[in-house]
């Protein structure tokens, strides 16, 4: 399974989201390849991804950027809330 964490410039915030998504997956007993991407590269980065994690602020831009893709976009409010990320991943993957 592939998950892409997306932010505007592909550093900082997306890296935090990647780290905490990995932590959430580990708690759920799931494994996935989680990568970080900037908005400009998300179409390529998410081409074979099942899930895209991003902020509410960027969701519309991500949706536009990926065009025809089957990846589900999950909006995360608090990037440090591993419970929130885990719950949303579980809903999406379960």
């Amino acid at each position, binding site marked *: 399974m592939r998950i892409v964490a997306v*932010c*505007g410039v592909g*550093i900082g*915030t997306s890296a935090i989201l990647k*780290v905490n998504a990995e932590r959430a997956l580990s708690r759920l007993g799931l494994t996935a390849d989680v990568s970080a991407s900037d908005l400009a590269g998300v179409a390529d980065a998410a081409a074979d991804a099942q899930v895209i994690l991003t902020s509410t*602020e*960027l969701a519309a*831009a991500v949706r536009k950027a990926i065009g025809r893709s089957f990846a589900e976009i999950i909006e995360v409010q608090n990037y*440090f809330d591993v419970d929130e990320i885990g719950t949303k991943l579980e809903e999406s993957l379960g």
Partner: protein
Amino acid sequence: MTIPSLPDTAVVLGARVDDWRAAVREAGRALTRSGATREEYADRMIAVIEEFGAYVVIAPGLALAHARPGPDVRREGLAIVTLAEAVPFGHPHNDPVAVVVGLAVSNADEHVASVAKLANAFNDSGIVARVAAASSAAEVRSILGIDDEAGAGS
């Protein structure tokens, strides 16, 4: 794998600012004072928010101001600015912002490890309020688990 150093020069406590741009500019000044960036980096951090919106407000009360690596980044750096009065950044859930973390990285690879450490520090849900209330740079370092001014060890 280290959290970037957090010298006293990179910590501003109780800053009074009128708006989010001024708050980000304080973080830029702190990064410049500590030797991590040139002054222009502040403009680039502001430009990221102007272009993409307030997504940098990644938790209630906390903004992670940053921009891509560039020639205005001298070395990896971290700055912490707490605000006397929180200001809105325009985020739908996490406004207003009381703590601005400034981050500068000189290449995309080195930063993932250090940001992971930063993520560990902030995963404690009460930590933004504790940083916001800190009264010294040493206290901020202590709350974030940064050992000393030179940065945490491994």
